[in-house]
């Protein structure tokens, strides 16, 4: 169990920032996820922790020890690569035993440990196979076993499930979480899949363009996004543009054009004044088709488009020249072109000031 700290880490490739003043404090035994779109710098940050890249400035600490420029083989981290990187010329046993052989453990102990860890990942009996004789899921387990067997200070997982099919992905992430909790290893997990991040992590850091935009528990990130990028990246939320008409202590009234006014709640840590431009964020599942008891808005628009997705139907509703993304009961029949009324609680409408904050997304 190791505590990993990144302090003001900066890494540039040419003119592009892969890490921009990255500050992280990952506590012992935590499963911490770096989440962001491709190219946001999450993998680079992971590779800096592994020692495959060195930062242009800033420091990396393991339990307070500065390892910024330590070689990869001096760090005691273990990484599971996106493509697994199982050596094709070695059997499953030799792949898993590699790290132990490097550490010059006695033969008997190596054997014992390898079989133990293969048990843990459910691959006992396949130790004489070669990687190419295994399925994708089995290869994934070998890669995990190879990393776990050395009892690393820090376990690093770089999009480990992205090459698996959807069902296997769900099963593997449950297993990874279970194993991680059993062994209690500090684990850093990189993914671009927000659902995966939500389901597996103790804490999540959302990254974009090399910057950490928000760090928090999955609930924090989901319910209390700090900016519009996090809000849209996590919740597939609808964004609406408008102007502040009235600001009260408990709610803010925003004109989104065409005489339509929506009441919402100021997002945490934001400041905003009457007359300012604002962006409203609403999650698609927060639109209701029956009026709730709490204070709410009533919105009437035109159904532009309806798409049946199984467990729900997604609608696009046009209102004041802007679009709402709404999830409704799939059994409810909705005709495109018809009028449609939705309700949304005041507390479910987040109001952000429209500023050009780093990494924020403008509405389309």
């Amino acid at each position, binding site marked *: 169990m190791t505590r990993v700290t990144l302090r003001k880490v900066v890494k540039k490739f040419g003119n592009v920032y892969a890490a921009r003043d990255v500050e992280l404090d990952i506590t012992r035994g935590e499963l911490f996820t770096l989440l962001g779109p491709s190219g946001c710098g999450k993998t680079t940050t992971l590779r800096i922790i*592994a*020692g*495959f890249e*060195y930062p*242009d400035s800033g420091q990396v600490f393991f339990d307070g020890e500065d390892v910024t*420029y330590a*070689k*990869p*083989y001096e760090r*005691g*981290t*273990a*990484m599971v*690569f*996106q*493509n697994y*990187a199982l*050596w*094709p*010329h070695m059997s499953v046993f030799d792949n898993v035993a*590699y*790290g132990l052989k*490097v*550490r010059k453990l006695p033969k008997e102990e190596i054997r014992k440990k390898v079989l133990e860890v293969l048990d843990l990942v459910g691959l006992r009996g396949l130790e004489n196979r070669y990687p190419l004789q295994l399925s994708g899921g089995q290869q994934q387990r070998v890669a995990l076993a*190879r*990393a776990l067997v*050395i009892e690393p200070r820090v376990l690093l997982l770089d999009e480990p499930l992205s090459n698996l099919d959807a069902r296997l992905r769900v099963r593997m992430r449950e297993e990874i979480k279970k194993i991680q909790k059993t062994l209690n290893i500090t684990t850093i997990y990189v993914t671009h899949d927000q659902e995966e991040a939500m389901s597996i992590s103790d804490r999540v850091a959302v990254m974009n363009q090399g910057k950490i935009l928000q760090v928090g528990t999955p609930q924090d990130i989901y319910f209390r996004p700090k900016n519009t990028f996090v809000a849209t990246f996590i919740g597939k939320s609808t964004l609406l543009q408008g102007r502040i008409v009235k600001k009260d202590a408990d709610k803010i009234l925003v004109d989104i054009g065409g005489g339509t006014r929506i009441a919402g709640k100021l997002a945490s840590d934001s400041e905003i004044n009457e007359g300012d431009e604002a962006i409203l964020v609403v999650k698609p599942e927060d639109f209701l088709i029956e009026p709730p008891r709490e204070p709410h808005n009533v919105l009437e628009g035109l159904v532009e488009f309806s798409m049946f997705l199984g467990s729900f139907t997604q609608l696009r509703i046009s209102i004041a020249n802007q679009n709402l993304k709404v999830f409704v009961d799939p059994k409810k029949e909705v005709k495109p072109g018809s009028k449609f009324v939705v309700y949304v609680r005041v507390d479910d409408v987040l109001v952000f000031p429209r500023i050009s904050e780093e990494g924020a997304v403008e509405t389309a």
Partner: protein
Amino acid sequence: MRGSLRHLDSVLALMIVFSLALFFMFLILPLVDMISLPFTFTIERLVSGARTGYSLIELFSDPKLFRTYSTTEPVRVAQLGTATLVNFVGWNFGVIPNTLIIASLVTLNTTILGLIVAFIMARYEFRGKLLMRVIAYMPLLMTPFVNAYVIKKLFSFDGLFSYVMNTVLGLPFKINVDGMFGVILTQSMAFWPIVYLNIYSSMMMIDPSLEEQAENLGAKGFKLFRSVTLPLSLPGLAAGAAVVFIFSMEDLGGPIAYGFYDVLSYSIYSNIKAAQNIGEVGAYVGALSIILLALALTIFFGIKKYVSLRQYAMLSRGGRWVPRARKPGVVGSLVIYLVVLPVMIFTAMPQIGVFITAFSERWSRAYPEGFTLEHFAGILTNKDVQTGLTNSLKYAVMATALITVLSLSSAYVAARSRLHTLNEIIDMISTSPLAIPGLAIASGYIITFTSWPFRGTLLDPLSAYGPWLLVVLAYTVRRSPFATRVIYAGLQQIHVAYEEAAMNLGASRLRTLATVVIPLLGLNVLSGALLAFVYSVAESSVSVTVGAVKTEQKPLTAVMLDFLTSGRLVGLQLAAAMAVLIVVTQLLIIFVTNVFLKQRYAFIGV
């Protein structure tokens, strides 16, 4: 830069230092030394007016090097008994124009033939295609010097061709090819497959949909070829033609066989030979070598640039990639079977002839006669041959060991180090020996290593130690690009994550190399080493110059040249038998690399 330096570890640093040091000592230093020599004399001459050494000024006023007139008539007709003898001799404008004329005409001939054969092979499906493919490889079998002698015999006034025309067909003609034309003929026959193979691989990389699109828009036949196929094959054509031009300039076999001495290669060779007696080599050799080197490097880098700008043929991906091949029509079939195939068989005749000669009792008339194994017995008992054979094997084994380490180092650094400028430098230096004429290296070596501070050391070829070490190093430098290219290609197939995974688990760079990289590269290293070995055995430029200064250290190719030029009885047959040994080794290695190791580039030969 500072950030990249952090990725260096001692093993990587050692690899960089080793490759750079070896190439610096045994490629760059001798060449720079050689280049500077005539300049030094020129400056001395200009400053003091002293007449020391050979300066560049003389180079341009020497009638042996430049003439505005030819001393020979290209075609002469004479009466020989009842027949008319047509002598194809060619011109002689002096060393430098001759070299350029020969190289240009050889490049032109080989390009035309190479283009036609490549097009037929890439776009037509017909009976006997496999046979044609095999025949096309035959001129690439390495029969140093001997093939030139065989061609000369075939085309002399009492050779096979005159015999067939005059005696068999009863025509009142005999022909005799000699001088410059002989050299051009020999080289064209030997080098055309290089152009063919390069164009062929270019054509196979053209996305079939590009041609289909053009056809779809109405282009067909020659219009399609000229507007789409040819432009997209140009990179291969240019690369092949450039290699042929350079090979032609440094070829010694043709000029020696035909006694056509007024070319750069022979002038350098004979001056180095002469230097053995006086113990040092003059600036004259340096001056000639500079011209050879300058021409070769200009072409090499020009082509490299051109090719890199035009690598667009393989841009598109996806879809069906079945190269287009169709059955030829009547005219096409006639051209293939009656024109192209006979020409190809004709170009394979020297190699066939070498085999026949090696097993024949004598070749005093139009064709070889009698069957005997005596020459093989002869070379196995002949002391000179035995010495040459053992020497060549020794040198080649030592060079191969060095090449393996060198090409692993330079390919690994070029593929993996994060010091990008350095990667490019190492990549450039390690492939440049392909373009640097062996004779330029030979004269550079003699200039550098016979003088201070190397005089009298193990590196001095004229010292009591003899030239063996220098020959090994020359083989190493000259033949390493073959292995480097194969290993580099292999490294590009190995994902970096394999190495990162090992280092992540605690393995040092050395351990990662030993347990992950080299096992995964295994076949590439092995086939690179085998290629380097066979090309080392067949090396001629350095072997017959630097290698020949001490009798008991002569390599096989130098012994072969002695047998051919000494006028001894059955010298040709004995040399042919030695060539057969080399060819059999080559075939064996090609078989192993192609069949067992599944490597395709073993034969490209450039």
